[in-house]
């Protein structure tokens, strides 16, 4: 992120209609030495302090979680996002993301950590008033107090605003009395501070800072979960809970502003964590396959194993490239805020909300790559992978929740086209204009000759992927108008196309940047991943687009559009099997994820 000041921050979602050069994106190769050191400290802390405790944490010995959080606090691992004046370090978003990535290896404990520093502390960081920040942030930054976040209720999950918990000012006007139940609250066994959402007088959705010690606050029994067992999950019970009125967080009736902004952050952090876990699953699977012999041969040398490794690694490369590109966007945008604005939580949150689309993509793509990788990880381990003695079994169970929490992947898919349409109507992105231009352009489309220069084919695929995405989305909007929101399958297809093209472009730009910096020879592995990923993602885009066109159009228009799609998807495929073997051989030799 050199030259931050001169750099124009890129608009959220603009990648669909604009082309970037590789120096406009942040890539993991751009990590500074400090950022790498922060990552390493996190890694060492997880490896040396947390991992030996995991078997106990899995058995709900939560005293250990609290001690581990305090140790993390001493190392500064709880204060990345807390401003300096409240005892924090106020690190850049890349550092904060790296902490989340490295922490993720600890399974359920990373959820404990993430809930504390993220959804637990951030509402106060971003939306607390001066007194609230002074009172809570210094003790949260050290781990002296632990935070939790209470939004979900038995009857309201995805429909967060449908919460039933109520708040009513007492007659003396000193306290709000909160009544209701908040479900599946991470850290609830030991949290001291809960950010709780409730409706004042039954209709004004608002956030409150609720301390465990307040009268009327209690927690239910520990849940027995499928995965992330190392984290505590309970119901938070509020029975005439007495919350001093100064603990109202933000404005009355404006709780949704906090909730939605925090969700954006939770989503990209989840994407980053998924990258970390995916790498870990690949690493342990490579180690296992190199050590395991069948037919007197290490199983890693079988071609079907190689195919798995290459698939896993190229998908990880894609989700890693995409999510750090997104984090780079936040950084660019925040660095343009004035010192004054930096202190204004709403301005900071807006820098992230601008990229709500990218946050949603990172969430569902990251979690699905992780699910794919742990599933193949178990497969590579064979029967041993089914045994809890092996780490991959826990990783497989732990992975599953990621597709559900922080907004289900279905909700996040729907948000992508929904947000686009909103941005288009607000005039933030000239989507309709671009779609119209494209529709006339494609009528005269001539097949292009693609050269053989490095990345030329992949760039061509990205270019056409964008056209396909815009075409499909444009037709859908034209056809259904407002009723489009009922066509959820079409919306999800569009989201998938958009995700694939964002990821494709992210790997192409990252690889291009790496080649520019270190030469093609040193970027060989990146190039292989890029070639593999782009071709396969593009094939998916073609399938999604086809299904969408058939659902949306009919008759002559359909025939015409299908012919356009055929033109846009015409290219000479590469031999991915050969590429995958080559990429896998390097992975097997390194016995870890390498780029």
């Amino acid at each position: 992120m050199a030259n931050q000041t001169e750099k124009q921050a890129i608009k959220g979602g603009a990648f669909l209609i604009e082309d970037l050069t590789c120096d406009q994106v942040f890539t993991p190769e751009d990590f500074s030495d400090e950022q790498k050191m922060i990552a390493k400290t996190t890694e060492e802390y997880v490896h040396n302090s947390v991992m030996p405790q995991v078997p106990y944490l899995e058995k709900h010995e939560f005293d250990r979680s609290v001690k581990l959080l305090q140790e993390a606090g001493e190392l500064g691992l709880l204060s990345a996002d807390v401003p300096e004046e409240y005892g924090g370090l106020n690190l850049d978003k890349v550092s904060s993301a790296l902490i989340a990535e490295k922490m993720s290896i600890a399974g359920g404990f990373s959820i404990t950590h993430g809930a504390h520093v993220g959804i637990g502390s951030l509402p106060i960081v971003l939306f607390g008033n001066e007194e609230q920040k002074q009172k809570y942030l210094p003790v949260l930054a050290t781990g002296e107090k632990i935070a939790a976040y209470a939004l979900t209720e038995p009857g309201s999950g995805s429909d967060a605003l449908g919460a039933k918990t109520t708040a009513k000012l007492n007659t003396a006007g000193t306290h709000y009395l909160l009544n209701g139940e908040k479900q599946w609250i991470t850290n609830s066994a030991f949290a001291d501070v809960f950010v709780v959402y409730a409706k004042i007088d039954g209709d004004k959705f608002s956030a409150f800072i609720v301390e465990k010690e307040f009268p009327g606050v209690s927690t239910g029994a520990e849940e027995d979960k499928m995965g992330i067992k190392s984290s505590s999950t309970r119901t938070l019970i509020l029975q005439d809970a007495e919350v001093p009125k100064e603990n109202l967080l933000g404005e009355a009736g404006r709780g949704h502003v906090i909730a939605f902004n925090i969700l954006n952050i939770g989503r990209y952090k989840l994407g980053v964590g998924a990258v970390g876990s995916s790498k870990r699953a690949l690493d342990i699977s490579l180690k296992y396959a190199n050590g395991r012999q069948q037919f007197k041969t290490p199983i890693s040398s079988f071609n079907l194993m190689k195919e798995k490794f290459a698939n896993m690694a190229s998908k990880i490369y894609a989700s890693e490239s995409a999510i750090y590109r997104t984090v780079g966007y936040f950084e660019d945008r925040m660095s343009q805020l004035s010192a004054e604005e930096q202190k204004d939580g709403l301005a900071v949150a807006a820098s992230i909300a601008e990229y709500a689309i990218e946050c949603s993509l990172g969430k569902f793509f990251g979690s699905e790559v992780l699910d794919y990788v742990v599933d193949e990880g178990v497969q590579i381990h064979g029967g041993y992978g089914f045994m809890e003695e092996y780490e991959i079994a826990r990783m497989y169970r732990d992975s599953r929740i990621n597709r559900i929490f922080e907004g289900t992947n279905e909700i996040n898919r729907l948000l992508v086209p929904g947000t686009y349409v909103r941005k288009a109507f607000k005039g933030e992105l000239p989507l309709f204009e671009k779609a119209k231009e494209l529709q006339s352009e494609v009528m005269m489309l001539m097949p292009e000759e693609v050269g053989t220069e490095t990345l030329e084919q992949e760039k061509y695929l990205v270019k056409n992927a964008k056209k396909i995405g815009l075409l499909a989305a444009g037709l859908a909007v034209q056809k259904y108008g407002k009723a489009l929101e009922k066509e959820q399958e079409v919306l999800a297809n569009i989201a998938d196309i958009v995700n694939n093209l964002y990821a494709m472009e992210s790997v192409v730009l990252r690889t291009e940047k790496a080649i520019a910096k270190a030469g093609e020879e040193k970027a060989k592995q990146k190039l292989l991943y890029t070639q593999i990923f782009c071709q396969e993602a593009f094939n998916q885009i073609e399938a999604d687009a086809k299904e969408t066109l058939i659902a949306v159009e009919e008759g002559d228009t359909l025939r015409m559009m299908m012919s356009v799609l055929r033109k846009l998807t015409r290219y000479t495929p590469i031999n991915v099997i050969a590429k995958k073997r080559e990429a896998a051989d390097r992975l097997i030799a390194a016995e870890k994820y390498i780029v």
Partner: protein
Amino acid sequence: MNIYVLLKRTFDTEEKISVANGQIQEDGAEFIINPYDEYAVEEAIQIRDDKGGEVTVVSVGNEEAEKQLRTALAMGADKAVLINTEDDVENGDQYTTAKILAEFLKDKEADLIIAGNVAIDGGSGQVGPRVADLLGMPYVTTITEIKIEGESVHIVRDVEGDSEKIETKLPLLVTAQQGLNDPRYPSLPGIMKAKKKPLDELELDDLDLDEDEVEAKTETIAVFLPPKKEAGRILEGELSDQVQELVNLLHSEAKVI
């Protein structure tokens, strides 16, 4: 207390070593502070925190070693010095390193110099003692405990698994053995502070040294990996036949008798 730590950048212990054209391949490898030097840094920081003074970390190497020095600063060292020999020394050895370090240290009035017992790459274990020798300073190797009271120093050193207690005096050079302490990892505030700590870079010229004064005393003939470990073999049959076969194999195959 004026404490100096001698630090080397080495391959990460997790790295797989590969050799091509008689050279160890460094491409894409991760590098760390030599683990024994990490004990040295930790001990220096602890002694400084207890007795006051200053910890300076010194490394002979190339520009890349700046990262490891920065890590030592992030752990809590006060200053760092990189003696960059990239342009002047092509094939250095322990003598080269020791000579350069001694030249640097001779006017520094160090009370205590701590080095690692051995570097995990070269593995000579010579640099510490050679530096002490060149400085005319007493030294104790492979220490696992050190206590300083005024000028006198109480040391426990590891002697092939046994312990030896030694009393000596400052100034002194010691080399750190595993077990001396549990090195901290740099905290995030430490990392942020390290950015602002001084890291000076010197070259041979700055020490008034000529290239031939530090020329290696040894010559590397060949670099190769240890032979791949083969699976063992279990002999079968009558015990006396097995013994006979074993003796034969030691003669004909292993050629050790």
